[in-house]
């Protein structure tokens, strides 16, 4: 039986991991919602983000949490490059082609990362490394709490961008009717680039936070992508609140599976849930029929 301190620890741990999934899933959801693009290489942007943060921290000695911002910027630029060079050329044609391009990108990013940074696992050392908060018998690393806080700030900023600004309005319009919004004078190609860059920036932030919480290596990106997709499917395609709640629940559920069933079940449980949901509802938990 799980005692209460383990439970608190598990939930906090799950929430911290969940936050990373939330950022990834939100970015993917944004890209999917606006561009109808399925980017299986999204997690590679997380991995690259972690390494870029690592480079900033080790080479320039910047604070890890400042590196979150810097990494967001750099990964957004990489995202622009990726969108313009690859995805734009296959967009809207065949769905399978997007998956193939993503797989090519996974190979490219993984191996570029190995060549640039080596394949040994690395960590981002935060200044609060040894600081932890004692809650009863469970002690919670301050970094987890900061990570959760940063994710909340980023999500609020994102919501503001989408709901209150003109660009956000153009993005929402494009996601509803691409063709019509083009007729209304929206430069949808620019919106596509912006959306992709925004999604990439979220992945970049997720990467640095990931690096603070876990050790990372060049192959760290693939599984979180698939899990982020699972979260999107569970939470509803195109729904950002769905991605947030789904991501948090998923992170916690995964940790509970690990402590109750053992760590080899970490990934399998997630997919089992996903497959069961899709058996019952092929369009996802909150997806619309016919979408």
């Amino acid at each position, binding site marked *: 039986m799980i005692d209460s301190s383990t439970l608190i620890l598990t939930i906090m741990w799950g929430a911290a991991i969940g936050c990373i999934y939330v950022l990834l899933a939100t970015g993917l959801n944004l890209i999917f919602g606006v561009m109808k693009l399925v980017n299986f290489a999204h997690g590679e942007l997380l991995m690259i983000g972690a390494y870029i943060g690592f480079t900033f921290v080790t080479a320039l000695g910047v604070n890890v949490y400042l590196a979150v911002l810097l990494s967001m910027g750099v990964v957004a630029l990489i995202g622009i490059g990726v969108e313009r060079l*690859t995805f734009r050329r296959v967009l809207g044609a065949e*769905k*399978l082609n997007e998956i193939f391009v993503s797989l*090519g990108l996974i190979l490219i990013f993984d191996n570029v990362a190995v060549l640039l940074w080596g394949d040994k696992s690395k960590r981002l050392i935060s200044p609060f490394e040894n600081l932890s908060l004692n809650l009863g018998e469970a002690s919670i690393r301050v970094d987890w709490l900061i990570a959760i806080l940063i994710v909340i700030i980023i999500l609020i900023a994102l919501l503001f961008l989408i709901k209150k600004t003109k660009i956000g309005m153009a993005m929402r319009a494009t996601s509803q009717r691409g063709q019509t919004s083009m007729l209304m004078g929206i430069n949808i190609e620019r919106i596509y680039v912006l959306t992709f860059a925004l999604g990439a920036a979220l992945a970049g932030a997720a990467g640095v936070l990931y690096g603070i919480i876990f050790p990372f290596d060049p192959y760290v990106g693939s599984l979180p992508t698939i899990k982020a997709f*699972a979260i999107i499917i569970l939470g509803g395609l195109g729904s950002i609140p769905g991605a947030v709640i789904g991501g948090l629940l998923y992170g916690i559920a995964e940790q509970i599976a690990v402590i109750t069933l053992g760590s080899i079940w970490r990934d399998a449980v997630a997919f089992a849930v996903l*497959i069961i949901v899709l058996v019952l509802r092929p369009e996802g938990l909150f997806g619309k029929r016919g979408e």
Partner: protein
Amino acid sequence: MFTKDIFSWMKQSTKSAKFYIFAASALFAFIIPLFFSDSLSIRVSTLMALFTIYASSWNLLATSGQGSLGHAAFLGIGGFTSSLLALNLDVPPIIGIFIGALFSAVIGFLIGLTCVRLKAWFLGMVTFGFAVITETLVSHFDEFTHGVMGFRTAPLVPLGLPFYYLALIIAISCVIIIYYIMKSKIGLAFRAIHQNESEAKMVGINTAKYKLYAFVISTFIAGLAGGLYAHFLRYIRVSIFTPANSFEPLMMSVIGGLGTIEGPIIGSIMLVAIDSYLPNIDQLLPIVHGTFVGPYLRLLGLGIFLVIVVIFLPKGVSSLLRKTYKYLRSSLKEDKK
């Protein structure tokens, strides 16, 4: 004179030309050990035949619009079934590989029941997830599967030439079977579903049924490839389920030419050749971060190649061959005038 004869059949109907090209390639594959009889060449040729089977199975599924990202699950199920049957029940591997293929097809049928209702990316997710689940289950029931540490598999036929010819015969049979499936009504339905599923449904094709057919046939062949692969390596462990093994047939089919018969064959020959012969130059390359850069550069090149093929050559390398062939034919016709 002789070249004229060759060109004269090229001018005949494409159907017989296709047959001759196929027969010539098959014959070439049969006699190639006469020229390259060292053990490495035979090993590489065997791998090419095995991956032709595996990639063709993936390609058949993709022809019906279903891109699996977890075909390694079926490769592994076929491999483990056959190896475990030989280990525990002394089933001769030549029968075992077919039992493995059948079992893989049964599992494929069950997974297919879910998958046929899903869209491209949902299907990708589910198949990928299924490979992860299979790997976990095989590791979890280790006392039964011995998958974590792996075990030595029984010999099917002696490695070297006998194995090569067995693999080749099975590969050729699979290609012929797939060719006839694609020519039949089922193949037509697959292509219709691939192009536009709702329209296919509208004209009265039972899309779910045909997609399930594709799943069962494809997983049967993938399981067969898995059995052969396990007995070829003489070793099996859970690493057979790695995503790399799932992506391999995808890359082979896409690079070779998606939805064509020759695509997976050309793709697997190219990729296996790259994997087998390029490492020879690894020592010449510099060492970065304490590791040889060769393997990573190869994978990087493969990634770039894949993206370039998808963007600029959506019908794969084989479409280049077709174009050359058509160009030759048309230039011949001009000559006649």
